[in-house]
């Protein structure tokens, strides 16, 4: 591998049902910063069936080039044809950086691709920058410049590690959704669109999709909510979430939950906040009956204001809460909702 042959920042432009995922635009936004530092361009890799029309949207959010891999085999996400598409693009176009969203798709696709092309992959990054490796000079070891330094939480959020991939290309990372900022939209901005199809021949690694079952969910995406009223096991029952829904309604917020609530079957997975759920950073996060396991905290600690209500005064959630109330949510929530209604009506 001649590392000098690898140029440019590439991002996987995830789409589902021919709608660009938010993470794709976030990766383009971050990719632009990295490309600027490297003096290069951002290329979005758009993979799917009948997806070429989405290229303009990627351009408007900052992609300089869009490589479109369009094939009927790519209609729904499946590991093998998507892995074949990305590894073929990498082998053909030789990017120095390749970013993938740390979504339920990207966390399957990224490792498969990195294993196929033999490079490193850093999972679930929350910060990316261009810098030197080693960060500080070490006698007898060459300090390399223009390396991708990938920072991620590990060990249940207890630690932060910064990882480099000095000897292999591309430097690959999956990036946690909701952390990077998308660039402002520039209406009418165009990108160079390149069609590329490596050919798809089903083999033993192609799985068959028997059924696609979409969760019936009319709720807003919790990652977009300004106010989240989040419940944990301490809420007591699925019925009791009514108290949280009432409060959310008064404040124009959305209900979310902890993993325990999803595991118990009280709420669907798409409302889960935390390491194995979604990362959220609302203006206000109410943690109601949530003990505050480190995996949960990892998904909400960047919220502007955290208000916790828990009857256990030793609950770890109080260590991250700006305002912690030791008390009974069954008494506090209904009264809070009523009084807020009155306050807001009086305005």
């Amino acid at each position: 591998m001649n590392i000098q042959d690898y140029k440019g920042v590439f991002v996987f432009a995830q789409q589902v049902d021919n709608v660009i995922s938010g993470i794709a635009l976030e990766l383009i936004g971050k990719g632009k910063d990295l490309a600027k530092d490297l003096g290069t361009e951002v290329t979005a890799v758009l993979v799917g069936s009948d997806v070429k029309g989405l290229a303009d949207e990627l351009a408007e959010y900052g992609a300089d080039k869009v490589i479109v891999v369009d094939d009927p085999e790519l209609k729904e996400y499946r590991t093998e044809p998507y892995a074949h598409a990305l590894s073929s693009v990498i082998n053909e176009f030789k990017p120095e950086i390749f970013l993938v969203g740390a979504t339920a798709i990207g966390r399957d696709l990224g490792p498969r691709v990195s294993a196929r092309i033999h490079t490193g992959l850093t999972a679930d990054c929350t910060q990316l920058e261009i810098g030197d490796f080693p960060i500080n000079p070490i006698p007898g070891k060459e300090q390399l410049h223009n390396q991708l330094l990938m920072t991620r939480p590990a060990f249940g959020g207890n630690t932060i590690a910064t990882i480099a991939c000095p000897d292999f290309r591309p430097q690959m990372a999956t990036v946690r959704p909701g952390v990077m900022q998308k660039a402002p939209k520039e209406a009418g901005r165009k990108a160079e669109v390149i069609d590329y199809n490596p050919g798809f021949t089903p083999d033993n690694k192609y799985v068959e999709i028997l059924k696609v079952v979409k969760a019936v969910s009319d709720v807003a995406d919790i990652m977009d909510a300004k106010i989240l009223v989040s419940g944990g096991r301490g809420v007591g029952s699925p019925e009791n979430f009514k108290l949280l829904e009432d409060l959310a309604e008064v404040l124009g917020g959305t209900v979310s939950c902890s993993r325990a609530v999803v595991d118990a079957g009280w709420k669907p997975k798409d409302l889960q906040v935390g390491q194995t759920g979604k990362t959220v950073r609302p203006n206000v996060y109410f943690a109601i009956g949530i003990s505050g396991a480190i995996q949960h905290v990892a998904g909400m600690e960047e919220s502007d204001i955290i208000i916790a209500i828990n009857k256990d005064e030793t609950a770890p959630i109080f260590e991250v809460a700006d305002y912690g109330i030791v008390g009974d949510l069954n008494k506090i929530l209904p009264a809070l909702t009523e009084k807020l209604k009155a306050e807001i009506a009086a305005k």
Partner: protein
Amino acid sequence: MKIVVCVKQVPDTKGGVKFNPDGTLDRGAMLTIMNPDDKAGLEAALRLKDQYGAEVTVVTMGLPKAEEVLREAMAMGADKGILVTDRVLGGADTWATSQTLAGAIRNLEYDLIITGRQAIDGDTAQVGPQISEHLGIPVISYAQKIEIEGDSVIVERQYDDRYHVLKAKMPCLITALAELNEPRYMTPGGIFDAYKADITVWGRADLKDVEDSNLGLKGSPTQIAKASDKVRKGAGEKVTLDAAESVDYIIDKLKVKHVI
């Protein structure tokens, strides 16, 4: 049917985290458990064994102490335990780890390989899919339900807003979610037998079709530039008030912060 389950002994992150001077984790210094997603994967394998009849072999890579999770797995009902341990395998990233496990699994017969989705220490979710790539078999990640139909496996694969029902020809690798099931307890008889059972121990020389350049710290494409404890913002206020006072307290804070 033959099922291989990969499990990892992980530090119980509740007990705090300790490092070696080179920034890698000092696993010897921490309390350990069987990784929860892996335990769900093992339980899934044991249920398939109960339902269809299967031989379940559990493989782990780690320090000699990782033998403990193999004995735990055997006490739950696994048939065999294989410990892959060797100094030259230490400091591996997910590439080198998956190469090691693939090298071990190449010595075994298997219809199904089950791994946990991710381990609670690294949280990468990479090793399962990477093993499948090295072995040239299909992968189904994030399994929330597993059934066998003839020579195929039918799996519900979870996504954020949907699930797919997928059918793959075996051999196939599946990564299991902890919510797949509630793992069984070890039985007293199982514990007794497991502590007498022979554990197979493999080193570098026992790995099949793997080059040295793909193993251990030296074979790891990713390198740690820096590792540190997370700096958290400190705790804010904590108050104990009656319900009416609590309401006033919260509303006051929401006003001060211009939320309402």
